[in-house]
């Protein structure tokens, strides 16, 4: 990575005795679509507000294009925020809302009109330019809020739960739309979200935040395939967890069976561990997989593309979740109540300290 656009070093924010953001280090490159993912209270919103300038770090530094902006006020940063509530000005029309930020830059009227017209066309709201925000649908308001921030051509666009207020179907379409717009404008996006699926679909890189600290940062694939902690593995996607102990280069499961898995360095015999495997990495039959498990099918759910099975096993108190593709499940007699054998590869097993 060349010179990063945004660089956070040891950024900490305390509210009284509460440490909302705790020593975050992060580099974000130009043109990246970055997601800050965390549950509520993880500090992701505070971090975003520090980037926008509404909060100043208690310690640490925020650098944009190499310049320390930690104490620059929001109206003097080349950074714009799309608010979760959209925060459209209720007394202004769509066009006036979008023009507002350009008027603050004291651009000539002709240029303002041209740029507003251009972006209205892009978000397909030219016909509604004269409407007030309360005469728009939720999806339209969201697009106006995005246009109002984008039209300023910021170095960095922050989006606070951008799709949170939309219904599920619209959200799916807007995920791709946001990605397309980001690509088209070539502006760095930082999205704050609690929705792991949203983060995986949209972002080039994802950072998982927990209790104010950065837990893991990487591409969606890295985070999904190689979670570095049990929390990350559980937070992103679905995961089966099986308690086990280290025994001679492999793991010994609760039921006494051996689980072949890549062990962490320095694991000693008898260390308690947790073996984890994604539901889609479990396959029907014994095949040539190193690991296998037997369980009783207690429930199955058809999801169109895949079939989800719940198995009762001796490996874990929780039922083991299996996702079979439609073609894999075809022609298989999967009666609830019957015993099923599944296999998985050693390399698909993740091992965490218990």
């Amino acid at each position, binding site marked *: 990575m060349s010179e990063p656009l945004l660089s956070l070093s040891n950024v900490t924010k305390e509210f009284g005795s509460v440490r909302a953001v705790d020593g975050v280090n992060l580099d974000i490159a130009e043109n990246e679509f970055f997601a800050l993912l965390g549950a509520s209270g993880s500090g992701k919103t505070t971090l975003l507000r520090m980037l926008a300038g*509404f909060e100043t770090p208690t310690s640490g530094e925020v650098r944009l294009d190499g310049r320390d902006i930690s104490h620059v006020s*929001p*109206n003097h940063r080349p950074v714009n*925020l799309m608010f979760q509530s959209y*925060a459209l000005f*209720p*007394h202004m029309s769509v066009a006036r809302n979008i023009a507002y930020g350009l008027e*603050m830059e004291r651009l000539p009227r002709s240029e303002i009109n041209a740029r507003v017209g251009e972006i209205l066309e892009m978000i397909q709201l030219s016909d509604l330019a004269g409407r007030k925000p309360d005469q728009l649908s939720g999806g339209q308001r969201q697009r106006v809020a995005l246009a109002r921030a984008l039209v300023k051509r910021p170095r960095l666009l922050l989006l606070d739960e951008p799709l949170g207020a939309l219904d599920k179907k619209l959200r799916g379409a807007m995920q791709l739309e946001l990605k397309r717009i980001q690509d088209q404008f070539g502006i760095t996006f930082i999205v704050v979200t609690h929705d792991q699926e949203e983060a995986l679909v949209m972002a080039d890189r994802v950072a998982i935040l927990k209790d104010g600290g950065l837990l893991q940062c990487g591409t969606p694939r890295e985070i999904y395939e190689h979670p570095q902690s049990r929390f990350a593995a559980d937070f992103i996607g679905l995961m089966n967890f099986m308690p086990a102990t280290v025994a001679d280069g492999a793991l010994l499961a609760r039921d006494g069976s051996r689980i072949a898995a890549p062990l962490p360095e320095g694991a000693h015999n008898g260390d308690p561990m947790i073996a984890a495997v994604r539901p889609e990495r479990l396959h029907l039959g014994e095949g040539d997989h190193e690991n296998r498990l037997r369980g009783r099918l207690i429930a199955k759910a058809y999801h169109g593309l895949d079939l989800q099975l719940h198995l009762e096993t001796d490996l874990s108190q929780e039922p083991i979740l299996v996702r079979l593709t439609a073609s894999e499940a075809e022609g298989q007699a999967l009666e609830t109540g019957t015993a099923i054998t599944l296999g998985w590869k050693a390399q698909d097993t993740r091992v965490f300290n218990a």
Partner: protein
Amino acid sequence: MKSAPLPLMLLILGLTFAFLYVPISVLVALSFNESGLPTAWTGFSVKWYGELARNGDILKAAGNTLIVALASTVVATTLGTLLAVGVEIRRRKGRFLETIIFAPMIIPDIVLAIALLSFFSLLNVTMGLHTIIVSHVVFNLAFVCAVVRARLKTFDWSVVEASQDLGASTLTTLRRVVLPVLSPAVVAGALLAFTLSVDEFIIAFFTAGAGRDSITLPMQIFAMIRFGVTPEINALSTIVMGLSVLMLTLSQRLNRGRLPGQ
């Protein structure tokens, strides 16, 4: 519990309204009575309104009232609005401030009047229209602040941050975002303040000082009434009342008609 039958409820309602509005209706009717006597109706006439227009004392008092009402409204509306916004921003500091601000609304007028009189005497201020204006600002401030604050309760503060984020300074944000969104409440507050000032008597009476130069309309009516209720007073009262009702209606309209997006 069984509720009272409908006819009885209607009767009580009718009596209540009669009690409230019959005296006012009589006053309005008498102001149009040609004879001017409360005992005999001799025909419809607007001659007492004409008499009013020729009465120099009344015109002078009306002028004074207008000056006091306008000046105190402008000052109270400006300060009251800023106060409301300021208090709302700092509201985490507790409710003590709110109590202090709204005190002039609750304190009896007579107490406020005496307090202001003592205050002005203590400072050796020559009293006149200016002291009435200042005194009216005192209670109007509380009313304007209350009306604007009611609106602020539903105000989405994120638009203030949005304005800053888009490059506006604090002052620009106040002028282009906060005030326009609040404007119906500000105008409503101003109309209320104007109305209250126009028919305020006790405080004006105490803080007007000696002499006839700073007599306001309610004071003039009070002075005239000592020689009996003349038809002119009825006419004058009708005008003042009509004006008050108009202002109050306008004020309530504005405050109810929420801005889009609120």
